[in-house]
């Protein structure tokens, strides 16, 4: 315990956005120090009795997704915002924490704040907490993602006015109304970037009889994906395995097709926002109508998602600046606020 404290002196406080798609780490006084995909490649070594070892983590491991030989498995240990593989998540966190302290001689033991989906269960939260503790954290705090996202986006969460935030992540989308440093209403739907990719894969298989991988689907989404019909139609040429012929074939997709493909997950998110507006107390609802909804998370990078929401809700919708890092930055700011004003400021666990 004492050694952990001494080691803690030489470690920076970290805020971790342990996301389904990407893990971001914000270090106090340094900013975002790590932004890597939440992917781990595991190598099975038959010569050592099938012992497993970590082959790669992060970007390197993501490049292996779907391209691994038999003895390597590239996996994503987080699914729908929560831990799907406890051990691998712990290894991944350990690797990331060490990576941000790599120049230190003393093994780091930082204070860590981790952002969790507001819909996660106590069991899922405990798993995240223990995973971080196992990765070397001295103290682990959990904060709900919408609160962290709102702070990171720069919303005036401490004011007695309603602020509405929508965080579209890789595995979940969180919508919340915040006032006076507290969450008035929050809801989490297990729809995120992954569901968009899945929808694109299904669309291509259904309409083109061709199978594409997750990475290809993600590339399509990033390059031509749009949530609202625009004046410009974009096209992309992709290659996949034709299911009838069994050989790779090339074909072209346009942005309208992708828009059509993503209708289902998009409607899920809009539905969640509408329910949140319905559930919001009228005074706070009026504040939101006056100022608007702020979108954060990687899903905010989907083209015209703000316009879609604007048209659907009739409210001003604002994209946060650098939406991908809002949650991690907000967590870092929350850590600072805890030090400045005490731990009771936010409902931390």
């Amino acid at each position, binding site marked *: 315990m004492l050694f952990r404290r001494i080691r*803690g*002196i*030489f*470690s*920076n*406080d970290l805020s971790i956005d342990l996301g389904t798609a990407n893990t971001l780490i*914000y270090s*106090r*006084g*340094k*900013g*975002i*120090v790590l*932004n890597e995909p939440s992917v781990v490649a595991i190598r099975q070594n038959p010569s050592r009795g099938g012992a497993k070892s970590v082959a790669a983590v992060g970007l390197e491991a993501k490049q292996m997704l779907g391209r691994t030989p038999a003895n390597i498995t590239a996996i994503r240990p987080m699914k729908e915002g929560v831990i799907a593989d406890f051990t691998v998540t712990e290894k991944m966190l350990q690797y990331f924490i060490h990576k941000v302290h790599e120049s230190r001689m003393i093994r780091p033991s930082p*204070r860590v704040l981790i952002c969790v989906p507001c819909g996660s269960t106590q069991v899922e939260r405990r798993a995240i907490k223990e995973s971080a503790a196992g990765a070397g954290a001295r103290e682990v705090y959990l904060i709900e993602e919408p609160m962290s996202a709102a702070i990171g*986006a*720069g*919303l*005036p969460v401490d004011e007695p006015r309603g602020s509405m935030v929508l965080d579209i992540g890789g595995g979940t989308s969180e919508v919340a109304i915040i006032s006076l440093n507290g969450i008035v209403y929050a809801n989490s739907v297990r729809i995120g970037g992954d569901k968009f990719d899945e929808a694109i894969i299904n669309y291509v298989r259904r309409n083109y009889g061709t199978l594409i991988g997750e990475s290809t689907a993600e590339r399509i989404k990033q390059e031509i994906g749009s949530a609202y019909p625009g004046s410009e139609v974009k096209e992309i040429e992709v290659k996949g395995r034709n299911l009838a012929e069994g050989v790779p074939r090339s074909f072209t997709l346009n942005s309208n097709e992708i828009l059509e493909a993503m209708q289902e997950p998009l409607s899920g998110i809009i539905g969640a926002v509408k329910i949140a507006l319905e559930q919001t107390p009228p005074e706070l609802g009026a504040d939101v109508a*006056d*100022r*608007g909804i*702020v979108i954060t998370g990687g899903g905010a990078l989907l083209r015209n998602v*703000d316009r879609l929401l*604007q048209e659907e809700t*009739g*409210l*001003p*919708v*604002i*994209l*946060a*600046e*650098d939406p991908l*890092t809002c949650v991690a*930055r907000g967590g*870092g*700011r929350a850590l*600072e606020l805890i*030090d*400045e004003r005490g731990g009771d400021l936010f409902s931390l666990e």
Partner: protein
Amino acid sequence: MNPGVVEEAEQQLEHREGPGHRLRTARRAQNLDLAQVAVQLHLSSVTVAFLEQDRYDQLPGPVFVRGYIRNYARLVGLADEPLLQAYRDSLPEDGVEPALGSTVRVKQGVGSSHLAVKLVTLLLIAGLVTLVVLWGKNRLGPPAGLERQTSAADPETPYLVAESASDPLTGQEPATGSPETTPQADHGVHFGGGFDAPETPVANLSSPEELPGTEADAVAAAVDGVEPTEQPRAEPDANTAGPRSADWVAPESTAQADVTSLGAVAEVPPGPPVVLEFSDRCWVNIRDANGQNRVLGELKAGDRRRLEGEPPFNIVLGNSEAVRILVDGKPYDFSPYLRGKVARFKLDPSREAN
């Protein structure tokens, strides 16, 4: 919507190159009026008017203003980044938010991760370690000024505060107790510290072969027989160590100078002499009335120590069966103080002798 306010705002428009002015120019170029833009942006006309006038104090926080500017720019077909940059430039210095991205630096208070805190902590730890080391040295080490003599006298038990510290006969004690004492050690005892010592007397003194058991015993007996005196310690030695007095003359005179120069005052116990004889290994801790360690450490079979310092002595014997205490030559019974093998007691030799 209040049309009066909007009109007034339009009339008061200043011609300056803020983002609001550029947005307004672009709107007019597209023949859009304020109300149309407000409807499309889902904002009130007043908000749009304030935006065009760059009156940000009338609008919600920067995050909202940036969003409004971006949406407005997209509506009128302008690139949003130059407008956002102009907005950031127009903010007062203290209202500027830190740049985003990987180089974000958030101003922070002095926390545990602050460099100053780390440095102070390191200094504190270093200071603490130094203090502990110094304390340990003072506690375990010999009295100041005599350290060199002690360490040289018995290199195997460096932390023993033997009576050698104040008694010149100590030079002989290792010879009787531990015959493996090296010549260099003896050299250090008497002549360390810049004195040119004659070679032969040292050789005579230090060689175990030249100190036969009988002679050593005689010396020990001489030690026991030495009466307390106020004289400098070198002198009685020269007289009592009869058989080797010839050899002792030269070095002792120098040693006397040495002792005087070091400022060490010979301590002679005021009461009858107390001698400890060891027949086996035994942990010993003896402190005098001043709380100073007189003997501390493990002694071996055959060792013999004469107590110095001001009585009464606080004595702790780890293996009391292996110790015999002689007060004024008579055995002292410490069995009432035994607790298992360990004896803890206070010994006042003058009282015991009476």
